[in-house]
């Protein structure tokens, strides 16, 4: 079972929900593996709450072009081919802008002079290990690179086994609804949408729900974090879309304090263990219902 935790808006509590769910499941279901995979490779932070002990590391590499300026005739074929404007010809030389390169390899393959070769360059690093009974993995994009999807793809390939039926994977997505979130959600069984009852929270919840509807059609559920007297704006959207609200976490100073101390909610407020267990049970049943309909 693969569950993506997404939100659209940043700071709604994806990591809080993902890390508590994963921790609770790992504690209560010891005969099967539970994983938390932090897929926010631009700013991974789940490790702060789980203090994992890492046992292995892996590099993420991409092939970037190297231009042999002696062999280059500045013909500009590579500039024409590059969709990302990572190349330019000026003053009889070909210039390469690494930050814009998506490592597609088209320039090297199409250079009529064979003047472009490719060299692996590290664009990110992956780590995995254990936090108590919970398996943990995350990735981090190398500073200076701005394309998270290849790192997320490699991270999932490295630790996620889609055929492992008894294993549960919680994928903590990036904020937003762009490529990194798409890459995280791909292949999931469920989308857990964490939101807050503010106009901004609702706006981005709509975007992420629409992304799911258009691209993946995963069964989904909503967690309202910082819940309080404005919940109605989320409730009416949820009712209109038929997305069940699975949990509410109140806006509370104690919860904010435990978060800022790097503690899990279930550590400081043990009554949440049962609430998160209930969410997992509801997710299982929603996945089964969807499976039964199909």
């Amino acid at each position: 079972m693969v569950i993506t935790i997404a939100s659209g808006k940043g700071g709604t509590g994806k990591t809080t929900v993902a890390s508590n769910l994963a921790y609770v499941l790992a504690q209560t279901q010891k005969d099967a593996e539970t994983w938390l995979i932090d897929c926010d490779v631009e700013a991974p932070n789940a490790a702060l709450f789980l203090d994992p002990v890492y046992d292995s590391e892996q590099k993420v590499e991409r092939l970037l072009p190297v231009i042999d300026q002696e062999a280059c005739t500045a013909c500009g074929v590579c500039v024409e081919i590059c969709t990302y404007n990572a190349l330019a010809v000026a003053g009889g030389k070909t210039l390469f802008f690494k930050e814009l390169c998506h490592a597609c390899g088209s320039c090297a393959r199409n250079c009529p002079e064979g003047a472009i070769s490719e060299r692996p360059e590290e664009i990110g690093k992956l780590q995995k290990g254990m936090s108590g009974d919970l398996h943990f993995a995350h990735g981090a994009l190398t500073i200076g690179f701005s394309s998270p999807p290849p790192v997320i793809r490699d991270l999932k390939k490295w630790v996620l086994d889609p055929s492992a039926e008894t294993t549960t994977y919680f994928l903590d997505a990036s904020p937003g609804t762009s490529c990194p979130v798409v890459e995280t959600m791909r292949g999931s069984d469920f989308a857990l949408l964490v939101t807050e009852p503010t106009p901004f929270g609702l706006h981005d919840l709509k975007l992420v729900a629409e992304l799911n509807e258009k691209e993946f059609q995963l069964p989904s559920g909503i967690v309202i974090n910082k819940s309080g007297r404005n919940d109605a704006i989320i409730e009416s959207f949820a009712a209109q879309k038929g997305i069940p609200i699975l949990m509410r976490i109140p806006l509370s100073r104690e919860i904010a304090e435990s978060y800022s101390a790097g503690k899990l909610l279930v550590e400081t407020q043990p009554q949440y263990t049962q609430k998160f267990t209930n969410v997992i049970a509801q997710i299982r049943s929603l996945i089964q219902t969807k499976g039964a309909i199909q």
Partner: protein
Amino acid sequence: MKIAISLDENKGLDSQASNIFGRCNYYLVFNVEDETFTIEENPAKSASGGAGIQAAQWIINQEAEAVVSGNLGPKAYDVLAAGKIAAYRHNGGTAQEIIKAYKEEKLECLLEPNVDAHSGLN
């Protein structure tokens, strides 16, 4: 020789010059010798990334020898510098006024980029 000026609009020599380089709406390419000019839509205006690079490449391909814009970011600057294209800064005004200032050598020459990358993104 030709100079290229970034423009907000297409109203001939009365067009307002643009502060934006890579994502401006139009470019005026003005031939200083015979006073002829063309105005073309900036092909890089809606590039998903690297607009400055693409715009600079286009200007090189037009065989312009100087560029006048409000702001110039680091990547576009590198491409123009490699192409030995002089970069000048204007302080607003119409194309006509900027051409006059250029001829009178009153424009400030940009010896380095004057804004950060992505400054023209709105």
